[in-house]
């Protein structure tokens, strides 16, 4: 697991350096900025962990769908509706009940948002990639319309909901000058462990992976691919919604227009680089967090943020190509 992370970081550095070289910047300088900006100071580390949290939960969402043979590209939209729903509900209930209800609302909204794609795939065999991408856009506009109108905080100029009561916010587990860890991160780690165990130790998890690995053989084994598809998409969607709810309750405090910088899209990369185990999502999301936080630092330095996305895209391609190499040399 550690080796994986190390290899990925090394690869990312190499690609980053190369790309930066192409654009006539100093690669060493850029790498320094990247690492300092993400891991150099306690504030930086806190920021990296904060970036990594939604990536972790979203990554798990995509991961579980992948294990069932599905590409849920719609996590972005599920996150948005989840965040929106959570904000709306949590505002009404102060204290811990507000937080819990907010989480439930977020998960339900996310699951609901993934439902059409799941149904279309299970019963019409319509490829879920397109439907989920389309629903992302619909989610963007739908939540945008809501937050500009019905749920907008009328007392402010921002296109946002009112703030959730402080008592409903997700607590900080550690809050010292050097280390800051929010409960949301703990929640994410617990989810990763929980998913890994669920996949390994339950019959339902076994059947889900069977469908993802060999759909026909799964049928012969008495498993219903349609039921599994629906289950996987529902779980995946609810995790996406959870990520959104967590964002509101832990970090943002409210929902606003332009809420997500694209966590859902990065989540696909997180899941792909995680390999075959849910535990792999942990280092993978950390890597993405480093690149994201470091990328912001780079931007201040004059290197456009897009470079980190390029690096991640190429990492995915190279990792996939290497997997092919491995298979052919083993055989």
């Amino acid at each position, binding site marked *: 697991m550690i080796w994986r992370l190390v290899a990925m970081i090394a690869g990312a550095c190499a690609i980053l350096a190369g790309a930066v070289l192409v654009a006539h910047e100093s690669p060493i300088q850029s790498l320094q900025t990247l690492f300092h900006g993400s891991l150099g100071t306690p504030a930086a580390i806190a920021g990296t962990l904060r970036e990594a949290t939604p990536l972790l939960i979203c990554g798990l969402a995509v991961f579980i769908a992948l294990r069932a043979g599905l590409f849920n590209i719609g996590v972005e939209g599920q996150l948005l509706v989840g965040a929106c729903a959570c904000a709306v509900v949590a505002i009404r209930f102060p204290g811990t009940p507000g937080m819990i209800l907010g989480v439930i609302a977020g998960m339900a909204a996310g699951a609901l948002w993934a439902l059409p794609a799941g149904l279309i795939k299970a019963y019409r065999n319509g490829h879920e990639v397109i439907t989920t991408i389309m629903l992302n856009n619909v989610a963007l506009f739908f939540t945008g319309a809501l937050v500009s109108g019905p749920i907008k905080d009328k007392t402010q100029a921002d296109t946002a909901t009112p703030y959730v009561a402080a008592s409903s916010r997700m607590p900080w587990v550690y809050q010292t000058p050097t280390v800051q860890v929010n409960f949301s991160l703990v929640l994410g780690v617990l989810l990763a462990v929980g998913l890994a165990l669920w996949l390994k*130790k339950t019959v339902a998890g*076994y059947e889900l992976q069977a469908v993802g690995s060999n759909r026909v053989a799964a049928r*012969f*084994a008495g498993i219903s691919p349609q039921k599994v598809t629906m289950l996987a998409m529902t779980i995946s969607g609810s995790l996406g919604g959870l990520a959104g709810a967590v964002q509101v309750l832990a970090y943002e405090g409210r929902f606003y227009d332009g809420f997500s910088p694209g966590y859902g899209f990065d989540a696909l990369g997180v899941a792909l680089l995680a390999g075959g185990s849910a535990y792999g999502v942990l280092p993978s999301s950390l890597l993405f967090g480093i690149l994201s936080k470091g990328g912001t630092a780079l931007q201040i330095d004059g290197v456009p943020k897009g470079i980190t996305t390029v690096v991640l895209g190429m990492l995915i391609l190279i990792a996939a190509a290497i997997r092919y190499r491995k298979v052919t040399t083993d055989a």
Partner: protein
Amino acid sequence: MLGITKKFGAVTALDRVDLEVSQGAIHAIVGENGAGKTTLMRILYGALASDDGTVEVETHAVKFGSSREAIQCGVGMVSQHYGIIPELTCLQNLILGAEGGPILRNRAAEERAKMLATRMGFEFNWQAEASTLSPAGAQKLEILKLLWREARIMILDEPTAMLSPADANALFVSLDSLAKDGATIILVTHRLPEVLEHCSRVTVLRNGKRIDEKAVTETSGSELAQLIVGGALDKPEITSSFRPGDRLLEITNLTVKGNRGDIALKGVGFNVRSGEILGIAGVDGSGQRELFESIAGLIKPVEGAISFAEQDTAGWTPAQRIAHGLRMIPEDRHAQGVVENWSLDANAALGLQRLKPFARGGRVDEKARHRMAGEIAERFNTKHGGLNLQMSSLSGGNQQRFVAARSLCLNPRLVLAFQPARGLDIKGTQKVYEGIRDVCRSGSAALVVSFDLDELLEQCDRVVAMNHGRLLEPEAHQAMDRDAIGRLMVGAQ
């Protein structure tokens, strides 16, 4: 072809085989499954390269590196599994690969196609999608493909396997007329009656060696059968002292649609009693697959009933059937039976994952699963390097052993087997059937589908035949009579 040798790893598929065919002849190559017939032809056709030996076509030495080169020399093959692409039209299938230029002249092509077809007595709707063709139609199209490419040596691999007697006769009429026109036809088959009636010479292969070659007029069916099989087989004595019990599986008036929308099973009715192994004989494509899958619950019948231990199974999911004791040895272990990149441990549970001891209340019992996997592997001596290794590390035969053993686990009540001994040698086949018999004798039943009639006659208690979607039982006094059942298989009476 002289001295052709071909090895696949440790297996010698062909050992210095000679073959001489005269022009204008219809020459048969016969032998059991695995004798090397198809391998030899694939070398001639360019799909395989021989390790040793020479090939001469019309006195020119040739070495085909690809089927393309073979076609250019006038050698073409119609394989057992037709190369027709269903989504394209008949005409497109005909000309694909031999279009005659970058721009297609569809009208001219259709003219030529019609001409070739009429010459052979065939008829096609050229603009229709090839998915509408029957097996006989697809075969005719395959032959036309060879004619289109002006093949002078035509290889047909098991051409009548999927044809009705009428279609088979029509095929031979066409082959005769082709031979008269000067084409050379090589027929790979294991149907001796056809060889005796239509061919001029026959070559016998056994275990990769050429045993003999004769003119058809100088030999007989029994002599050929002797040459093919070799010495008399040690037929094990099946203790026929068992008495079948109650009806375990009852099928009434079963009508099922195939995946081309046609009716694949027509009013099939029969029953299986506890204790017995019922063999289902028939040419491939007679509806066995649909029967297998509808009993398993994978296809919903249009009409009819399947009842198991006096209970109507209508609406039962495959999972429910498994829970009631249904077990399967599917036809294609790779696509239907295993997950290649899972470990043997994980594969042991496939199909049984909800049953004790594999699972306890929704949770996987890994220790028990590991133990079961070990038992499954041992039962038929599956050679493996470790239960935690991937299934793909096993050879095909060992995978089959594993899948077969798995199906006999955990008190099966009805075992559905589709070619259970596929890829196994004689000893392995014996063991698998013994295992099935043991399970049956303790009160269960088995349904075995196979394309090898002799295997069924040897191993099953009762054999029925399927033909064009209908199930036919032989008369009581001819219950295990090879000829009688063979006739039912091809629809002759």
